[in-house]
């Protein structure tokens, strides 16, 4: 498409030099800046707290540090073939021509681009090739599609798939030699990323055009499973992993399969559609796949606006039409729709006049020499049309503030706050103790003795209650688990019943149709209603179950609150209030969008229905097909719901346990103090040692006070970070 002529556009300025030119206006903040500020502050705080909190906190702190340092925001760029996904990524990262693009579907491999400032990975590019088993499965026509068609008409191997697999196998042999299978299972690593390297591993290459004699380079794309590219200089503020995918709706079925499998866990999806055919049925099908993934995770980018006959006028119309269609299809979702052109965005790195010349001359030189596709641009030279990239960046940043990443940061901050507060409570109790003892000692020895005894007694009582608290937390967990356990079996049987009913009624309908001699030529079983019913029932059942959990929380928390406030009069923690993270936040409906037999193209069904069977047999088989497809989906949904609730319970328990272990370690420290204080009582010390001890005492109190000051400061900082994160979300909620 000429989109991909980096040498042409940039006068040979190739990719090796990683100068990130800002693709957006320079005054704008890079993507993820607000979240990055929170992340940096949290990281700084973590190193301040290092060694400050007791041993009990170490595993929690380590986990928090790992999450903060390693977790990147995953952004997947998806869409149909030739929608311009790769061009979009190239423009977003300010590197036109980095990833190879072409006029034919060209991206064959799911590749992850890892952007993180200042950290140099050992290798810049890692390509994982298929394992022997995976390749065998692919080469034999494995995968979901084969499985589904097998289920429908056993032994019937679709010619198309067979032909494609044969092409792929023989192509691999031609490209890589007869012994290419020896390469399988390996990972290829490289120090530098070059366009040639990327072309070798992730470009599909021309079918049948390569003769092998032209160059020594070998194309590995057919046997490459995934590509990881590491960049130590990032155009983004927050650590981001961009995922480029081969397009869906690819007649090359194998590639379509690979893409679908890669769509599991990104935080944000950028859905690229072509302005020329915005939101076709295939796009909508794909959106349904993402629908389960929550409303604040999808941005629709209508690409290639430069190819509209009249970009200025049509852009508005197209955008409005897409918004309308989305509202109609997904009434509850709010999906930002941005229209633009990644190609124009890529050109934006040049001077405006160069853009105009380039465009005009390309068209003039064209043999079919029609009028320019965008006369408005050619005439004015500079693109008056927004290329949409700045809007996309803004949308991504806002979405990140509401994403699982933001929630994660919030949870980390919340958990740290609990830790610091309970530690601070312990420290102030310790401080009080030391001061009392110090006072007592000054008056006389017998008074000290008495104080120590009193202290020991109260400490024992405190410890007992702390243990009791810990025990009731454990009991609470058991109760949660029991609630979830009973809830999930109810949910499972409810959903299973829906599947069985639907399967039975479809089977009956088919049998009746056959008996009545109704034409079965164009007969199809539409499972959309079943999907919808399952979705409704699932969400309702989940809400009920979640409410049960909430009820348990609401019943138990006030009791525990009383216990804790007795233990720690000065404690102001929030652990005993229900966490703010929404329960359904991480619930996924993705399994509902799994491709099932019923989704197959009509021509496969024709084969099935042609088979000579009685009407009853046909009905029975249909029933089994539906059950076999949907019962596993039900299991997966229930499993997801349980995971989601368990995660919540675990998070609550983590915070609760942080408190009790903080309390217990405080007890430990005070006991040590007592032992030190009691020492002189056992053997009468001389004056010198008394002086020394007094110095030590003062130093200990001093240290304790310093520690308290740090903890209070950390508390404040954490409070600020949390407020900041909350306000980012609120700000987004209003948008």
């Amino acid at each position: 498409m000429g989109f991909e002529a980096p040498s042409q556009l940039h006068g040979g300025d190739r990719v090796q030099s990683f100068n990130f030119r800002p693709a957006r206006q320079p005054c704008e903040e890079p993507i993820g800046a607000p979240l990055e500020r929170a992340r940096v502050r949290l990281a700084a705080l973590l190193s301040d707290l290092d060694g400050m909190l007791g041993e009990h906190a170490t595993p929690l702190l380590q986990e928090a540090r790992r999450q903060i340092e390693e977790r990147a925001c995953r952004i997947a760029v998806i869409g149909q073939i030739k929608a311009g996904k790769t061009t979009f990524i190239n423009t977003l990262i300010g590197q036109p021509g980095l990833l190879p693009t072409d006029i034919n579907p060209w991206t064959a491999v799911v590749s992850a681009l890892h952007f993180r400032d200042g950290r140099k990975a050992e290798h810049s590019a890692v390509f994982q090739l298929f394992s022997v088993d995976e390749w065998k499965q692919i080469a034999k026509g494995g995968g979901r599609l084969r499985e589904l068609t097998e289920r429908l008409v056993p032994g019937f191997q679709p010619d198309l798939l067979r032909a494609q697999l044969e092409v792929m196998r023989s192509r691999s042999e031609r490209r890589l030699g007869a012994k290419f299978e020896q390469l399988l299972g390996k990972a290829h690593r490289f120090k530098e990323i070059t366009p040639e390297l990327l072309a070798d591993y992730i470009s599909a290459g021309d079918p049948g055009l390569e003769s092998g004699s032209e160059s020594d380079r070998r194309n590995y794309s057919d046997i490459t499973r995934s590509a990881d590219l590491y960049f130590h200089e990032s155009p983004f503020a927050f650590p981001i992993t961009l995922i480029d995918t081969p397009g869906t709706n690819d007649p090359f079925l194998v590639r379509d399969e690979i893409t679908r499998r890669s769509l599991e866990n990104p935080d944000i999806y950028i859905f690229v559609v072509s302005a020329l055919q915005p939101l076709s049925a295939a796009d909508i099908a794909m959106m349904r796949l993402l629908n389960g993934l929550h409303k604040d995770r999808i941005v629709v980018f209508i690409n290639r606006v430069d190819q509209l006959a009249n970009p200025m006028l049509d852009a508005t119309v197209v955008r409005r039409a897409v918004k309308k269609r989305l509202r109609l299809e997904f009434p509850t979702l709010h999906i930002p729709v941005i229209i633009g052109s990644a190609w124009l965005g890529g050109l934006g790195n040049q001077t405006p006049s160069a853009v105009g010349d380039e465009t005009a001359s390309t068209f003039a030189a064209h043999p079919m020499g029609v009028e320019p596709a965008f006369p408005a641009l050619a005439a004015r030279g500079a693109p008056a049309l927004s290329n949409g990239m700045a809007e996309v960046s803004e949308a991504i940043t806002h979405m990140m503030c509401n994403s699982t990443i933001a929630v994660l940061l919030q949870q980390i901050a919340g958990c740290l706050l609990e830790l610091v507060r309970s530690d601070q409570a312990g420290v102030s109790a310790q401080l009080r103790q030391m001061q009392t003892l110090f006072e007592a000692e000054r008056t006389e020895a017998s008074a000290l003795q008495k104080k120590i005894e009193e202290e020991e007694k109260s400490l024992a009582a405190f410890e007992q209650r702390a243990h009791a608290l810990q025990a009731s937390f454990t009991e609470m967990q058991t109760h949660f688990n029991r609630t979830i356990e009973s809830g999930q079996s109810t949910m499972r049987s409810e959903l299973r019943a829906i599947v069985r009913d639907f399967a039975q009624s479809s089977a009956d309908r088919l049998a009746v149709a056959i008996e009545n001699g109704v034409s079965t030529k164009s007969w199809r079983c539409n499972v959309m209603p079943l999907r919808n019913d399952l979705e409704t029932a699932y969400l309702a059942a989940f809400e009920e179950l979640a409410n049960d959990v909430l009820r348990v929380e609401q019943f138990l928390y006030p009791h525990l609150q009383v216990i804790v406030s007795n233990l720690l009069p000065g404690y102001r923690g929030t652990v005993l209030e229900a966490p703010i993270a929404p329960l359904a936040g991480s619930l996924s409906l993705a399994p509902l969008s799994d491709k099932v037999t019923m989704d197959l193209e009509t021509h496969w069904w024709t084969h099935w229905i042609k088979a000579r069977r009685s009407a009853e047999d046909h009905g029975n088989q249909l029933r089994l097909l539906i059950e076999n497809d949907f019962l596993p989906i039900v299991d997966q949904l229930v499993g997801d719901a349980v995971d989601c609730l368990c995660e919540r319970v675990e998070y609550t328990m983590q915070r609760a346990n942080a408190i009790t272990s903080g309390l217990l370690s405080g007890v430990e420290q005070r006991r040590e103090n007592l032992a030190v204080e009691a020492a002189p009582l056992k053997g009468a010390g001389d004056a010198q040692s008394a002086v020394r001890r007094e110095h030590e005492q003062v130093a200990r109190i001093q240290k304790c006070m310093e520690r308290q000051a740090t903890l209070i400061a950390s508390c404040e900082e954490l409070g600020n970070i949390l407020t900041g994160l909350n306000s980012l979300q609120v700000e987004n909620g209003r948008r």
Partner: protein
Amino acid sequence: MTQVLLQQLPDERTNAKPLVHSLPATSRRPVRVVIAGECNSGKTWLANGLLGSQVLPTSFVTRTGLPTVVEFGASSRLVLERHDGSRVATTWEDAESGVSRGRRLYCRLPSARLKGFRLVDTPGLGDGDEGKLRRTRSLCRTADLVIWCTSALQAWKASELGFWLSLPPAVRDKGVLVLTFADMLRQDQDATRVLARLQSEAGLHFQKIVVPAQLPELLALAGSERTGRFPQERAAVASSLSPAYVGA
């Protein structure tokens, strides 16, 4: 664009005589041509090209959603066939705005070209409308020649393949795949490479894969053979397939 298409016809691509003259005088009825494809794949643009003038309105977003039959008539007329089969005169504005409802539009033109063929421009597929799919399928069944348009900018998707394979083989035998919008590609060799991909991925399912400029020649051929099939073309297609596909 229409102009370009037609100017190119006689000299550049073929030596074929102008369409009308090449049709045998003995033709009893005009060749029935159905143009189908997904939204914005250039169907109406192509139809206008074949008609030689901007007869059918091309609009980017709003579509009538009705198949339009373009045939010869003594005078220019636009007729709407209602659901009950009755016919009334209408205007493009009314048809586009959906004021008048019906199942088909008939556009009669006193054009000499239309003595050779009768065109059906079908509504764009790809929005998942089952009824539209069914109607287009039945239109294709009655055609002598089915022209499937695929846009060079996003050529030959699985959804197109899916629809095409849902047609009976006998209908597919009458199919020609046309690569539209090749003029919007930015590099010369691109069109060749897209055509190469089409040949390897769709070659088996069509009589022939062509660019718009080659169509009039094909139409003429279809007219002379009456059956709408081109056995000699088929052999050519088979021989141009990539080795892996031969015999598959």
